[in-house]
């Protein structure tokens, strides 16, 4: 066991702490800072410093140390916060991110950058407080309530401590002792797994020791007592809280240790520590109620549950087909199994779901920085932060969303002066919203800027050689910006306007099984609307039969199904067929034609027409039969094969065979290109597309 084994844990924790720090910094009201917030920011810096010290990340430790001191002044009201000070803090936080990344890559952070940030922080301390930050470092303490904040001189100067390890395995223990040895001088250590006592001398405070240890063991496994230090002020603070159940237990354990071989005067320190710890933990959001699990493990469980469900439907089929299916005991059992399996699947799927806050939380900073860079005033509003989405999708939506937000700020929202001239408030408004809509999530980026310019778009499209006409509808014109290499920015900025972008945004979103559209009103703003499936792992499917083959249609795309009558079918000259459904004439796509299925029903009046909607287009899909609806586990075809036209993925049916899941938007395109080939006699074209030579 090597200390580097804990690096990853530290990096992950530090990342989270930094993200938390940023959120708090951004939300901080500089005139009336919230004490809790200041404490939270301070705690984050403090914890990172502790870890950095343990692992010997010096640059990180130095930077956090300086930052922590300043934060400590801030939370004690000795440093009057201003916007530019918060900016400096944010800058320092970014620097910490960079340093972390450098360490993560196994390297050392840029020394110049380190000096620069340290100098900035030092100067800030000097100017604002009049002390030299490093020389006058106050003792960092983790207490969240200033009232309960112990400020004993002993904590600064350190002293002798008894560190009790409760229930720590042998292998970790050796490491911990080695670790403690680096923090100070270990005088003696003895005990067993249940309780192992280390007496040490160090110049660090209890918090520092604890911060270091907590990267290796849980806080509950640790009890640190100061030996021969005056304990009165600490005891006072702890007294009212010592009654809490979990702490009493810890206190009792500590007491047991003391009665064994320690002087009684150190007694109150342990409960004080426990109280301080649990008080500071509460606002951090219940660490002990969640665990960190690699996504791969969750995915494996999801896969296995998928298999379980396949097996379960297989059993159902067997029971239905055989005489034993009439056995009520068996039927009841199978029904129960089915229900439990579904619940299990839902429960497992929910593990992968994370709130959109995960995505939205990175935008306040981006908007703030970008707005000041562009000289614009922008207010960011987010709605639906708690809307949940599959983890895999949240990660993939960040880039496209970032691009859209940048675009809105750069091209959409005007400068304050121009806004004022247009009779709009100087501050622009950018709304990010997320909401569930059926089996989908709808994410919108709405700005109240200038909107898209129809003439400019058309002119630009013409000059880029796209075929456009003045008679195009607004909606069609807006979609032009998704064309590759299209940018209307008058000059290239480092924010956006390189002409790569919107087409990539569209492609990314389509690859996630979603689609994107743009609505815009000149002078009123632009809305970009992204619709994504909630998860890519399961799908509500409608099984259909064509010839001898079974396919799955996503239920979300199906509107209705009907048996067409001859009167409602209209054959056009080009070979197209239209189906009249109430007042609409819908194009008809026969699955057997698009996918070359043999022995299918070719007479539309004997087939079933399923009305589907894909990419905003409605049409009728001709199939032989509807079998039923079921949830299917989506299996990627591209893992071992490649993209298949008209098909989005595959699934495994109850009998263990594979069924293809039809891609409603692609199926239409496929049918179209097949028809074109037939008309122009260019049959080889499609084959070439699939079989490149």
């Amino acid at each position, binding site marked *: 066991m090597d200390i580097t084994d804990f690096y990853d844990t530290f990096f992950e924790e530090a990342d989270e702490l930094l993200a938390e720090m940023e959120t708090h910094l951004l939300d901080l009201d500089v005139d009336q800072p919230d004490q809790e917030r200041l404490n939270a920011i301070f705690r984050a810096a403090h914890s990172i410093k502790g870890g950095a010290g343990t692992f010997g990340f010096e640059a990180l430790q130095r930077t956090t140390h300086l930052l922590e001191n300043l934060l400590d002044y801030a939370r004690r009201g000795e440093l009057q916060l201003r916007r530019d000070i918060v900016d400096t803090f944010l800058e320092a936080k970014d620097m910490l991110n960079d340093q972390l990344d450098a360490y993560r890559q196994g390297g050392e952070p840029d020394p110049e950058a380190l000096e620069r940030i340290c100098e900035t922080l030092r100067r800030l301390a000097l100017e604002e407080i009049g002390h030299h930050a490093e020389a006058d470092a106050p003792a960092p303490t983790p207490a969240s309530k200033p009232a309960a904040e112990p400020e004993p001189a002993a904590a600064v100067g350190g002293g002798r401590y008894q560190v009790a390890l409760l229930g720590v395995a042998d292998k970790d223990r050796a490491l911990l002792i080695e670790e403690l040895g680096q923090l100070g001088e270990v005088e003696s250590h003895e005990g067993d797994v249940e309780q192992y006592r280390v007496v040490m001398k160090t110049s660090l405070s209890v918090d520092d020791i604890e911060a270091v240890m907590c990267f290796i063991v849980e806080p509950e496994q640790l009890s640190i007592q100061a030996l021969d230090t005056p304990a009165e002020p600490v005891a006072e603070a702890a007294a009212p809280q010592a009654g809490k159940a979990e702490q009493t237990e810890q206190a009792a354990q500590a007491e047991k240790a003391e009665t064994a071989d320690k002087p009684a005067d150190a007694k109150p320190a342990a409960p004080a520590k426990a109280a301080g710890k649990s008080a500071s933990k509460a606002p951090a959001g219940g660490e002990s109620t969640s665990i960190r699990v690699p996504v791969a493990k969750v995915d494996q469980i999801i896969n296995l549950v998928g*298999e379980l469900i396949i097996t379960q439907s297989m059993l159902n089929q067997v029971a239905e087909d055989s005489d034993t299916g009439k056995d009520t005991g068996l039927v009841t059992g199978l029904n129960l199994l089915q229900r439990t399996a579904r619940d299990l699947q839902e429960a497992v799927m929910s593990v992968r779901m994370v709130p959109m806050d995960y995505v939205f939380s990175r935008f306040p900073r981006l908007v703030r920085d970008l707005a000041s860079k562009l000289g614009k005033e922008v207010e960011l509003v987010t709605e639906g932060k708690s809307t949940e989405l599959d983890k895999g999708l949240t990660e993939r939506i960040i880039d496209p969303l970032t691009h859209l937000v940048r675009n809105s700020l750069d091209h959409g929202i005007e400068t304050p002066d121009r806004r004022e001239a247009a009779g709009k408030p100087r501050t622009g408004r950018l709304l990010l919203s997320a909401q569930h809509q059926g089996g989908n999530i709808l994410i919108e980026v709405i700005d109240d800027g200038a909107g898209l310019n129809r003439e400019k778009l058309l002119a630009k499209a013409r000059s880029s050689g796209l075929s456009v006409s003045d008679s195009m509808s607004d909606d069609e014109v807006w979609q032009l910006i998704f064309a590759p290499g299209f940018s209307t920015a008058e000059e290239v900025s480092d924010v956006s306007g390189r002409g790569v972008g919107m087409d990539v945004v569209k492609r990314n979103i389509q690859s996630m099984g979603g689609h994107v559209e743009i609505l815009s009103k000149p002078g009123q703003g632009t809305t970009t609307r992204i619709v994504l499936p909630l998860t890519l792992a399961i799908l509500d499917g409608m099984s259909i039969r064509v010839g001898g083959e079974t396919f799955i249609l996503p239920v979300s795309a199906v509107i209705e199904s009907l048996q067409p009558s001859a009167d409602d079918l209209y054959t056009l000259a080009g070979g197209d067929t239209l189906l009249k459904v109430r007042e609409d004439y819908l194009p008809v796509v026969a699955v057997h034609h698009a996918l*070359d299925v043999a022995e299918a029903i070719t007479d539309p009046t004997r087939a079933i027409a399923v009305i589907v909607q894909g990419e905003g287009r409605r049409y009728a899909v001709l199939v032989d039969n509807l079998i039923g609806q079921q949830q299917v586990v989506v299996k990627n075809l591209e893992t071992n*094969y490649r993209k298949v036209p008209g098909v989005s993925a595959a699934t495994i049916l109850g009998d263990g065979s*594979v*069924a293809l899941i039809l891609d409603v938007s692609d199926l239409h395109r496929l049918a179209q290109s097949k028809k074109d080939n037939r008309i122009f006699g260019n049959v080889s074209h499609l084959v070439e597309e699939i079989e490149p*030579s």
Partner: protein
Amino acid sequence: MSNATALQHSIAAETGSQEFLVFSLGEEEYAIDILKVQEIRGYENVTRIANAPDFIKGVANLRGVIVPIVDLRIKFRLAEANYDEQTVVIVVNIADRVVGIVVDRVSDVMTLTSEQRKPAPEFGLSLPLDYIHGLGNLDDRMLVLVDIEKLLTSEEMALVEEAGE
């Protein structure tokens, strides 16, 4: 890789001998590196893929994983493609992918020393030379040693999407 196979492999490397899985396509006998083989299973429950080349028979479910099934007999016109109880699918692991290839019969596993391996003639074989390691000489039998990885990842097999598409 288990210790046993690792050991075998190192022995093989030292002596220049290598183990091959031998199978037949029509009249000819072919062999592929056994380390590429994941398993052998029957030909059943293959779902057709529309608009795919004819030698791609479709996809099958291999314990939850969707695997494409390729019939080399059709691709290289090696033999008549019959599917019966004897038809087997060799599941191979190549370039992080799992692919099934249909063969008429799997005969055995053989160790070929470097002396038994000969370079392939420039022409006269049913498979393009690019995909052949060489010929194996075993008593009176001739084995065509196929570079299965190169073959299945080649563009003409259309199994792998080209980059940048």
